[in-house]
């Protein structure tokens, strides 16, 4: 038995629990401006505890390699975060999600290639023939789900990034029969994960991964640019579920607690954002109902409400004529530092 599958070291479990509590306080703190800075600090502390604990329990090999890897990633992350323009923030967050998705896929692949070391498989030595490794059935499902969700997060976030960054048209791209295609691909993934239970051979695993990359792409391309913030938040939720699924595979409570936390809060946040924008959650997620071909769906009429886009001069004219002006503060206003003027 390897270290991390042996009866859990109580100190490690305790440290992971503390990290989990820090993350909860982080999310809680971010819900009000007064406590938000403290909340962010709690998040950093929680992450530090989780990383240090994990490194300390795996001191057996290559600590230097790990530290170098963290230093490289950290430097890239910090420089990007400092340099990026405030208005480019949504696409940066989308790009960051794709990294989490890809990391989840890589961890899943690593676990698949080396199941014995992860404690999710056993070496079987038959009387005749070569020894082979059997992966536990529960682990196969967890691993399949983790890789699938990770891959969807990755390709979906890449598309969201391209759309927000303007590398790709923000308008919805409608494939003919896309709902049928999407359902077929999804059914294929689920079917293959079920089949993975009886057959652990490589083609099943790789097909699950490939199909999941495809479905992530297909799910996001029909969604228009205006709905992207909700999609980014939804992908955030997916990245949490991917982390949780990998946590199940590796029997790691830190990943399970945090993944579940991010997964459910991300889903709620997307729902709240939809409410704030007066959009139906289901239609955003199902994709592109706001576009012209969606007249068939019942929700279409409610969504196609009129809106106007004007220049600053138009706005100034309208406001000077108006008796009452309602200003809805949001992220854009903070970016423009307009709150000082308003006061």
């Amino acid at each position: 038995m390897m270290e991390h599958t042996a009866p859990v070291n109580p100190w490690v479990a305790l440290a992971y629990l503390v990290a989990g509590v820090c993350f909860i306080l982080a999310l809680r703190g971010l819900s009000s401006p007064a406590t938000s800075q403290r909340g962010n600090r709690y998040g950093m502390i929680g992450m530090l505890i989780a990383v240090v604990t994990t490194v300390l329990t795996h001191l057996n090999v290559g600590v230097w390699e790990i530290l170098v890897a963290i230093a490289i990633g950290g430097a890239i992350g910090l420089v990007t975060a400092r340099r990026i323009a405030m208005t480019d923030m949504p696409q940066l967050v989308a790009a960051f999600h794709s990294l989490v998705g890809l990391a989840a896929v890589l961890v899943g692949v690593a676990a698949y290639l080396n199941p014995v070391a992860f404690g999710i498989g056993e070496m079987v030595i038959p009387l005749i023939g070569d020894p082979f490794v059997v992966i536990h059935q529960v682990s196969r499902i967890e691993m399949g789900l983790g890789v699938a969700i990770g891959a969807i997060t990755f390709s979906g976030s890449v598309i969201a990034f391209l759309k927000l960054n303007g590398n790709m048209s923000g308008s919805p791209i409608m494939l003919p029969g896309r709902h049928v295609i999407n359902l077929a691909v999804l059914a294929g993934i689920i079917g293959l994960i079920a089949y993975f239970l009886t057959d652990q051979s490589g083609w099943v695993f790789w097909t699950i991964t490939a199909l999941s990359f495809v479905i992530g792409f297909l799910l996001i391309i029909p969604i228009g640019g205006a709905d992207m913030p909700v999609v980014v938040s939804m992908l955030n939720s997916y990245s949490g579920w991917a982390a949780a699924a990998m946590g199940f595979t590796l029997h790691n409570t830190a990943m399970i607690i945090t993944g579940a936390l991010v997964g459910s809060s991300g889903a709620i946040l997307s729902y709240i954002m939809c409410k704030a924008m007066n959009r139906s959650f289901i239609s955003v997620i199902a994709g592109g109902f706001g576009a012209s071909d969606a007249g068939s769906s019942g929700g279409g009429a409610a969504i196609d409400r009129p809106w106007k886009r004007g220049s600053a001069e138009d706005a100034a004219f309208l406001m000077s004529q108006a008796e009452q002006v309602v200003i809805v503060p949001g992220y854009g206003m903070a970016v423009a530092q307009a709150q000082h003027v308003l006061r």
Partner: protein
Amino acid sequence: MDFISILSIFVMACFVGYYVVWSVTPALHTPLMAVTNAVSSVIIVGALIASAAAGSATSKYLGLLAVVLASVNIFGGFAVTQRMLAMYKKKERPAAPVSGK
């Protein structure tokens, strides 16, 4: 740990996540999303386990690559959140002395 106790932890954590964000002010949606993103890089724990696992060089390097990706997200995610929050903080600061007088 057996599957059921892991599952219980998972379900409880889902509920905590569900209740903790309901009261968020609309102005903080984007920062909250940024911090949740930073927190989701807890996948680095899995990446670290993968890069420390003995037996397969390929899976070790995949793990190290995942460590790099996740740490971009950790440092970048928290730094970006801090930058965003700094803008909200300025809103509070000048207000405090004015209301005090």
